[in-house]
């Protein structure tokens, strides 16, 4: 299908991925690597060593101007007034009915200057939404998505690898903080201790020309060689985020799922002093006794793998919900899933049996607390299992 292939968007590293014999897929209109050595090997590299991801398909929207904080406070449910310069924050943008436009990471670059990192598949929609929401405020909205190649270096050895290539004291950058510094000879590179793997790691933002992007990629690969660094594709990105129970747009969150259903209420600051878009609807959900359904973790007991969209049944055969993400978990060596179920199932202090309809067969699963995987806390930093972006 050459016609559609040419229409796909490409990152600056597209030719490099192909030269590495990556399997490529259409991901939200982007021609992206899904795997190089294999999902399991890449997943394990990130859990036990280090992996490198091209995440340049993510979008980067900047808001500048005297009322940029007011604009962010309007479309972002978390409280951006709490941010210090150099700090990042997980949040989401909501529709008036309290459902998701997208989840985002808000970075405070300086007073009156914020960078919003958004998902690839929702880039245009998010950009228009931010523009519209920011309209009443004195601030300028710029889409810098195509200006950056974004690389994610993830895993317990990520800091050691990146430290070889930068004069920034990485141990001083705490989880969900960032700094600018020299990386691979490039000045003013933004280095954020963020990621989407449930592991320690960094995301760096470099100029998006192919020569620079390829050079930096190769220097990171070389620096990581002693730790067995693996190039990682979207396949491992998905299994890693699922083990860590982080949301993916179109699965755990969407325009028909609200914040409390998705268990992300702790990031919705109803008392921040600004009525953000969607706040009123969320208050009504709270006043009405909370949501009827909730996102719940499942572990397969019987043989079988729950996949996205599979129905869930109770012991009487009544359909009670649906799987939104499901996969083998390569590190945990279990088959896990996230599913929407009636709120009664969300109390994981008492694991409950449910049945996954796998191609006509009822396969037993047990509700289980999430995240499925939580990394051991490092001595120098105190990372929390903060969800991030796809």
């Amino acid at each position: 299908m050459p016609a559609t292939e040419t229409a796909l968007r490409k990152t600056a590293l597209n030719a490099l991925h192909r030269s590495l014999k990556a399997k490529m897929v259409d991901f939200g209109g982007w021609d992206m690597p899904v795997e190089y050595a294999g999902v399991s090997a890449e997943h394990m590299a990130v859990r036990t060593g280090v992996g490198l991801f091209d995440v340049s398909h993510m979008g980067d929207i900047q808001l500048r101007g005297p009322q940029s904080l007011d604009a962010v406070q309007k479309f972002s449910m978390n409280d951006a007034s709490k941010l210090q310069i150099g700090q990042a924050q997980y949040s989401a943008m909501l529709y008036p009915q309290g459902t998701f436009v997208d989840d985002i990471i808000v970075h405070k670059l300086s007073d009156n200057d914020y960078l919003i990192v958004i998902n690839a598949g929702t880039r245009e929609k998010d950009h228009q939404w931010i523009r519209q929401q920011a309209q009443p405020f004195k601030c300028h909205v710029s889409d810098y998505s195509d200006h950056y190649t974004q690389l994610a270096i993830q895993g317990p050895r990520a800091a050691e690898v990146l430290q070889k290539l930068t004069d920034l004291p990485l141990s001083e950058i705490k989880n969900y903080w960032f700094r600018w510094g020299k990386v691979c000879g490039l000045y003013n590179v933004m280095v954020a201790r963020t990621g989407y793997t449930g592991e320690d790691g960094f995301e760096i933002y470099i100029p998006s020309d192919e020569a620079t992007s390829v050079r930096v990629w190769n220097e990171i690969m070389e620096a990581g060689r002693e730790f067995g660094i693996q190039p990682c594709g979207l396949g491992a990105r998905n299994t890693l985020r699922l083990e860590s129970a982080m949301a993916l747009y179109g699965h755990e969150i969407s325009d028909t799922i609200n914040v409390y259903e998705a268990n992300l209420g702790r990031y919705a600051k109803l008392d921040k002093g600004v009525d953000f878009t969607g706040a009123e609807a969320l208050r009504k959900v709270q006043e009405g006794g909370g949501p009827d359904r909730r996102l719940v973790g499942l572990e397969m007991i019987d043989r079988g793998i729950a996949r996205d969209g599979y129905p869930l049944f109770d012991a009487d055969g009544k359909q009670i919900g649906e799987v939104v993400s499901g996969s083998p978990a390569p590190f945990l060596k279990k088959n896990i899933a996230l599913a929407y179920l009636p709120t009664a199932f969300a109390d994981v202090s008492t694991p409950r049996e449910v049945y996954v309809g796998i191609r006509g067969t009822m396969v037993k699963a047990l509700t289980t607390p999430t995240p499925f995987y939580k990394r051991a806390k490092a001595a120098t930093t105190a990372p929390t299992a903060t969800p991030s972006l796809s």
Partner: protein
Amino acid sequence: MSYPDTYRYTREHEWIHVENGVGTVGITDHAQSTLGDIVFVEAPKVGASVEKSKVFGSVESVKAVSDLYAPASGEVTSVNDELATAPESLNTDPHGAWIMRIQLSSPAEIDGLLSAADYEKFVSEETGH
């Protein structure tokens, strides 16, 4: 990896090797490569009947689940139990690791399957390289 000349192939990427009226069935190198890390194989039970071009089981990788289509009709005489504990052998040895053996009920069906050369051509046209 080359495709054995003694096997015949389906457009759904299964192979069958027929000896004395018994067909040994597996998936092709192309199939395992497309699926990636295989973690689970659902095979039929011994004694079950399978019908040409109908689903007889499934194979699951980390990424996805894929149906298996019978290259020919017949009765299942044995299944490869080793795949229950070592499904990854479908990745490492796709043309050796078999899934089931069937007693062919209509041996002439085999003539309608692809030869190794035709299958290779089919795969290269399908993937565009």
